[in-house]
């Protein structure tokens, strides 16, 4: 049996959880889904529309807001009671925060950030990126079940979830949570006030990464952006260094965009960047490393030094206009 740990917020199932449900269904094994929280029967009912064995609902006032301590205690009890072979969860920031702790508490391994799983020779094989996605590894796990596995966002398709003819049962599971033992005291989530630019509306984006070398070269990218009537954006290290403001960052911790054209200059293509731009209609990548992961999703690949090619592109655009 595969146990899926659901994630939800503001009464809604996280989209990534549907991806994990789809992944679990595709294994052909029996699937159960566990929902943890308080007053979240609606979430459980929504998940019960999927063709799974049942939905387990763990509710307690101490679980009303997410904490690593609370979730670990609650889910550890469920995992032990249910005798799952695999425990699957989406590799979200919340999962990063508590699943390693949960796995450590039960002393069972966690294969994190997987993009695929399959059964081969009577054992599970997990595929996960390594070395910043420049390589992939097939990973085998020894030792008794359960094995914890987190799945990278977007590696399975939420629209492939199989729905049942009727809703599956939602079974409340009682766990005792000692709220005094929860050591994290979280406050309300918030957004940093000043988000001046809304890149989600841009038709064309020129985005720069660490290949731009120094702040003095940002002007080159700006010239290209001007020639294309594009907005300028960047990978995280560029914003961390202050070469561009934070609100121009693309990726999991920045903005998610889907322009007609995304032109990546000196960006390697780490997953946290890619999740923010892979929906772009046309992706052009310029990178001097022919094996850079960004080329995997590029429509046009230019394996060259950006300082040679970009001035030529600017000249070409200006000569024709």
């Amino acid at each position: 049996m595969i146990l899926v740990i659901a994630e939800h917020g503001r009464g809604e199932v996280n989209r990534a959880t549907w991806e994990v449900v789809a992944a679990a269904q595709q294994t052909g094994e029996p699937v159960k889904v566990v929902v943890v929280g308080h007053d979240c029967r609606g979430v459980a009912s929504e998940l019960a529309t999927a063709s799974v064995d049942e939905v387990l609902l763990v509710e307690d006032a101490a679980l009303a807001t997410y904490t690593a301590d609370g979730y670990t205690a609650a889910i550890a009890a469920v995992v032990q009671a249910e005798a799952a072979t695999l425990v699957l969860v989406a590799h979200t920031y919340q999962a990063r925060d508590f699943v390693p702790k949960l796995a450590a508490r039960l002393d069972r391994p966690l294969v994190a950030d997987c993009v695929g799983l399959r059964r081969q020779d009577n054992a599970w094989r997990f595929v996960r990126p390594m070395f910043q996605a420049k390589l992939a590894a097939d990973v085998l796990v020894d030792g008794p079940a359960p094995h914890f596995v987190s799945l990278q966002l977007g590696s399975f398709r939420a629209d492939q979830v199989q729905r049942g003819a009727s809703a599956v049962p939602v079974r409340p599971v009682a766990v005792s949570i000692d709220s005094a033992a929860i050591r994290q005291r979280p406050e309300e989530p918030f957004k940093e006030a000043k988000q001046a630019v809304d890149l989600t509306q841009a038709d064309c984006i020129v985005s720069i990464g660490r290949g731009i070398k120094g702040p003095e070269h940002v002007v080159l990218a700006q010239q290209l952006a001007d020639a294309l009537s594009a907005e300028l954006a960047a990978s995280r290290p560029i914003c961390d260094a202050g070469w561009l403001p934070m609100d121009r960052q693309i990726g999991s911790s920045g903005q998610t965009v889907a322009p007609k054209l995304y032109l990546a200059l000196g960006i390697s293509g780490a997953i946290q960047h890619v999740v923010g731009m892979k929906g772009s209609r046309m992706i052009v990548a310029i990178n001097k490393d022919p094996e850079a992961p960004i080329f995997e999703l590029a429509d046009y690949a230019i394996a060259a030094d950006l300082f040679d090619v970009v001035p030529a592109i600017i000249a070409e655009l200006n000569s024709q206009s």
Partner: protein
Amino acid sequence: MKIAVCVKQVLSREATIRVNDQGTWVRDADAQFEINEPDQYALEEALRLKEQHGGEVIAVSAGPARVTQVLREALARGADRAIHVGDDALVEGDAFVVAAALAEAIRPEGVDLILTGLQSDDQGFGQVGVVMAERLGMPHATIIMDVSLADGQVRVKRELEGGWFQWVTLPLPTLLTIQSGINQLRYATLKGIMAAKKKEIRAVRAEGRASEQRIARLYVPEKSKQTRVLEGSAAEIAKELVQALREARVI
């Protein structure tokens, strides 16, 4: 305030990555190494906290003898002393093996705070810090972008997805995994490098835990998308690209 900061030695970002003949790890015999990026920010944060609150910063790294290089660098930037948890097997060990090795090295120090990076550039488990906290019975918080200490507690700013944040308060001792960009890094000065020569790097042996995760095969991922490769001189590439953009009506 006694702070341990875990710094991992990883392949330099500029290094060309090649899989070894067995297809299980990379060829790193004569490679260039550096401190894992978020760990640099964790070290900087530890140094800043010490400057504000006094105390001591202990840099800890697990791996073969070569990792003492990153400990020297941490000492040069201002760490007071270092612990090297030695074992060649730690390079390919799973997150639990590495976390156990680091935790047992740090446990006797009785620290108030442990800082790690949020993820390593090579293995990318994103687990070692959190697992260590569980082993040591400490609370933790991950992907931290701000740390302030007061009255035996720590208030931290956690990064959430899509530009959201959240403040969380935890009691000490605690473990935090630090996100890149939390501060501005300082670099070692010549004075720092000289001073580092006199600082202690204590060697301890790793607790021998066996990996439960094994890499069966390491490889360059296959491309799934149809990509057009533009080649030639810069001018030729530019011409072809601009034409393609016009045909696709993106410009």
